[in-house]
């Protein structure tokens, strides 16, 4: 609504903050660059562009613009973020400083190995630690994100079978509670999904699994992908029989390690019999989520898949000569590798942050992380169980799922999520896992205080009351956020994906 007077809280634009293009004025400069110190060469006139539609803004305005934008975000650094399956734990500041050390930040990826010994030693050590924590024979640091780790794992399983002449093994079993990345990964690798139901306890339906692997069907099973603890936050009591059943059929076991925050020092996936898994360093090892990335999806593998890992891998290529000399680290490519997953060798900046994190905690500390993550989740579960329906009323791992609905109200999980924002709390993951109606998946992480958890409980109980007494306050929520509910249909229909029309206007 336009008014004649300028009010303190409004601007002349339609939104919260002008677009950077709306701050532009022809000829304004935002950066101070040097003049050429070499003789000028002729520019190739027929190859040059006529114009470049970038904004022209001063440094002060650029900084203000992006700082103001940042203030419209909820973040771990501003408030509680109990987003299930995402492990939104505190991101220690030392990680950021370490990754920005000049010797890491300004190191070229194609530096000769002799000139990159510090960086390679760090990667080698991280490989060793991540193998130890997961109980695997070795790891590959190259995957850029969990989904890429999954892709690598399934390609390795595929190639393992193909190399053995088992080309008919093209089916991967996936529980119905799985992350969407699991079935998408299987398709991307050119294989097919067999979906498995869950039982009443939230475990994989063991009978259905045995049936899927029975008789002639066994010969088509390439493997199974399973999240441990499950996406419902539950340790599957049948994990050993599950692994056994798939192995007996000739398949390999993939573990989605998104929930490793529940397992450090509790159980090693390699010792349970898994053949390959991915970590999410941006979940378990506190590297920041960055508003959607970068991540790092390091994979760990059992002995029989070691030769299939995506390279390059850091190895000792020359042992230390004497007591004081360091070994020479270098790159190796596993002999049957599935190939290169990305340019260079992974999101190194994330490796540095994870290294700092593991170094600070040590082995006992990482076990403490898991113990407190699980303690916090169970505390919330216990305190909320009389106010919300828990479809699986049993001790949980690092997260648990509730139903965001009531018999005597038309309020839905979405409304509860939006109402939480009014209290400065980020909503839990909602509508996932798909097998729970109106799911709210809650993961507090170990870095939250009892006070924060108690306030969350109070707010959730208050919202449950509102759902019955004043449901409209939930339907209309959020009320106190920078913007209110959005018209998502309009976004998909009008499809305005860049400022192009605006740029034409400015011209």
């Amino acid at each position, binding site marked *: 609504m336009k008014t004649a007077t300028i009010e303190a809280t409004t601007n002349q634009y339609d939104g919260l903050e002008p677009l950077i293009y709306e701050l532009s004025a022809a000829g304004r400069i935002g950066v101070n660059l040097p003049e050429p110190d070499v003789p000028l*060469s002729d520019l190739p006139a027929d190859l040059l562009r006529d114009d470049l539609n970038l904004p022209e803004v001063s440094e002060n305005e650029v900084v203000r613009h992006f700082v103001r934008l940042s203030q419209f975000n909820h973040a771990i650094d501003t408030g509680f973020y109990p987003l299930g399956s995402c492990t939104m734990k505190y991101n220690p500041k030392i990680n950021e400083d370490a990754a920005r050390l000049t010797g890491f930040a300004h190191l070229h990826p194609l530096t000769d190995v002799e000139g990159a010994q510090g960086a390679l030693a760090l990667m080698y050590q991280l490989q060793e630690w991540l193998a130890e924590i997961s109980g695997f024979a070795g790891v590959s640091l190259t995957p850029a994100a969990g989904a890429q780790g999954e892709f690598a794992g399934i390609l390795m399983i595929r190639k393992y079978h193909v190399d053995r002449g088992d080309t008919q093994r093209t089916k991967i079993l996936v529980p119905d509670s799985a992350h969407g990345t699991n079935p998408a990964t299987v398709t991307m690798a050119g294989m097919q999904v067999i979906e498995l139901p869950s039982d009443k306890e939230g475990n994989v339906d063991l009978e259905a699994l045995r049936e899927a692997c029975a008789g002639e069907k066994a010969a088509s099973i390439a493997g199974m992908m399973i999240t441990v603890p499950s996406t419902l936050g539950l340790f599957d009591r049948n994990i050993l029989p599950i692994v056994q059943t798939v192995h007996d059929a000739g398949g390999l076991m993939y573990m989605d390690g998104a929930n490793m925050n529940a397992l450090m020092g509790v159980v090693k996936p390699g010792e349970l019999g898994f053949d390959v898994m991915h970590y999410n360093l941006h979940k378990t090892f506190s590297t920041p989520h960055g508003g959607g990335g970068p991540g790092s999806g390091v994979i760990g593998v059992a002995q029989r898949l070691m030769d299939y890992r995506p390279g390059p891998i850091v190895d000792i290529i020359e042992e230390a000569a004497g007591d004081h000399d360091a070994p020479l680290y270098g790159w190796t490519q596993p002999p049957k590798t599935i190939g290169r997953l990305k340019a260079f060798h992974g999101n190194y900046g994330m490796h540095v942050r994870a290294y700092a994190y593991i*170094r600070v905690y040590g082995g006992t500390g990482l076990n403490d992380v898991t113990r407190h993550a699980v303690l916090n989740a169970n505390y919330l579960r216990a305190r909320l169980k009389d106010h919300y329906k828990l479809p699986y009323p049993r001790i949980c791992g690092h997260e648990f799922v509730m139903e965001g609905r009531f018999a005597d109200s038309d309020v839905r999980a979405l409304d509860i999520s939006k109402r939480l924002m009014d209290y400065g709390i980020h909503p839990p993951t909602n509508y996932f896992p798909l097998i729970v109606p109106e799911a709210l998946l809650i993961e507090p992480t170990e870095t939250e205080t009892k006070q924060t958890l108690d306030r969350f409980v109070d707010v959730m109980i208050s919202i449950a009351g509102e759902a019955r007494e004043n449901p409209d306050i939930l339907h209309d929520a959020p009320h106190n956020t920078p913007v209110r509910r*959005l018209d998502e249909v309009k976004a998909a229909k*009008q499809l305005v*994906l860049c400022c192009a029309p605006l740029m034409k206007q400015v011209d």
Partner: protein
Amino acid sequence: MSYIPHTEAERQQMLAAIGVTTIEDLFEAVPATHRFPKLTLPAPMSEMDVMTEMAALADANEHAGDFALFRGAGAYHHFIPSAVNHILLRGEFYTAYTPYQPEVSQGTLQATYEYQSMMCALTGMDAANASHYDGATSLAEAVTVALEAGRGKRKKIILSHAINPQYREVVRTYHQGGDVKVVGDRGQASIPDLIDMLDENTAMLAVSYPNFFGQIDDFNELAEKVHEAGALLVMVVNNPVALGLLKSPGELGADIVVGEGQPLGVPLSFGGPYLGFFAVREKYVRKIAGRIIGETTDIDGKRAFVMTLRPREQDIRRDKATSNICTNQGLMAIATAVYLSLMGKNGLRKVAELNYHKAHYAAQQIQHLDGYSVNMERPFFNEFMVTCPAPVSRVNEALIAQGFIGGYDLSADYPHLKDTMLLCVTEMNSRAEIDALVDVLQEVE
């Protein structure tokens, strides 16, 4: 431990509320035979000691802070204004999650929308996504789009050998489970040779601009021929700083433009995190993978931004999705948005010209040296091929002893380019550095 805030009293209260006696009781569903294994890891360390150790590891590297760097080959040492890092260190940006809840994520959403807008301007395309992992995986995902556009009937992918060799490897890794045929890049096929490979089975033809050798190929008639064959023209931008100066790929007829965004505000960081950009003509926007931010309004009519075209993505479409991508390189996209905002149209042009002039100055100086020859067959941007009087490894040994990181040895990827290095010169290299480099090269036996 400072990141775990619990006091002993709180632990006891919490256990009592749960109804168990010890924390160990919470793990009873884990098979007892495998429960609580020993973690053989070092002891905990103080923040001070960790930082000391990591600083020593960092110092053990030969980095661009201490050495004059003349190496590129897919990762580039460019100037990054201080403001970029200060914005990236805003906890509100870097400790946020994917903006699934738009009411409390407008910062990430609008910044990413602005990133998309600037990448459209730079590439001459209609739409861009919020990033892929890097330039290599962007190209691999472009192949998927081209296969979809060819309705699964066109299976042939033509790649130029002058695309970064690592990118071509990644394409093969990504598509090993399908029946895709990747051709064109095993020899030294020219652009006209690639055009001759087009047929009714071709889904796409990809070239690099500038190419991996720093050169700008002659794309005359290329787009026309590719489109006549019913295929898509994909351009891989090796260094997008070049687009501050050069015609946009859109002007040259590209349908999909992918590349490495690292040169636009992201440090070398030993190879990552970087970001892959991915931009397309409007008709392909519904076929692309990854997150896309669109403009809309909230219920009060206020302009706002949201992730859109969501039904393409893995969490909704599951095994019918064309890609499993979830986490992308979001923070790096914000770095690029800040960088391009600071540079603006004139700044990026100026940086590109600095690169061009300095690289050409260096090339001319080296060309005059005995035993060296510079490949001047095609116009180049900030990288060029130098054939040396000795193996590249020997030349680089001499250079490193004098404080220079020399060019990339091309012979491993391209056996016909024996004793040939790919030398890169950016705005970070002063004339004095270039002159000193030339002096050392002169001395190599």
